[in-house]
């Protein structure tokens, strides 16, 4: 299924956009989101390895989500606030 995925920081800069539409395998997990970006933008592989995934503004790892449970997906590069 097609989903909009938010991108930030180095990842947004690499792709030149702050949001992309990706075909993501369901059920949705952190791994399927990352695989979807890598399939469409292979140049992001190195950065993507260090990224976390947020679904509905919460970090996720092994959890599975049905499409209708997902309202927002984001890829989170290593944070550097403070």
């Amino acid at each position, binding site marked *: 299924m097609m989903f909009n995925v938010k991108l930030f920081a180095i990842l947004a800069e690499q792709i030149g956009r702050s949001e992309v539409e990706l075909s993501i395998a369901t059920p949705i997990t952190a791994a399927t989101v990352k695989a979807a970006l890598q399939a469409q933008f292979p140049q992001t592989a190195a950065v993507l390895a260090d990224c976390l995934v947020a679904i509905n503004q919460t970090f996720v790892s092994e959890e599975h989500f049905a499409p209708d449970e997902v309202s927002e997906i984001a890829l989170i590069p290593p*944070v550097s606030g403070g």
Partner: protein
Amino acid sequence: MHYVAIAAQPLDVNALYEKLKAPQFGGIVTFIGTVRQWTDDVETTSLDYTAYTEMAVKELTKLAVEVEAKGANVIIVHRVGHLELTDEAVFVGVAAAHRGEAFKWCEYLIDTVKKQVPIWKKEYDTDKIRWGGPNDVQR
């Protein structure tokens, strides 16, 4: 009552400090992160901070609520936008009954903000531009 924010304007640290004061607290610890010029032999000239603002506010709120449940008052405000040397990037303030807990919780909060809140630094150094600082993972 906690106050957390992602701020596009310069931080008014005196006003934030004033918000922490209350009769039940006898110790207020504040941490203010500022833009540093030198990191070893790397010279920084300025920074850009960006955030996933909605999620960052949620994460900051979770942290503030966690510490306030122990009986403190918490303020966390992080800047976004372009910052010059010495500009304030982050304010973390904890008001508690006694100094020991105020120091401990303030350190816990800034350490956790740096690890898990979706905020990013783009550092303009004299040799190159870096995402994160010289001591962070480089690509």
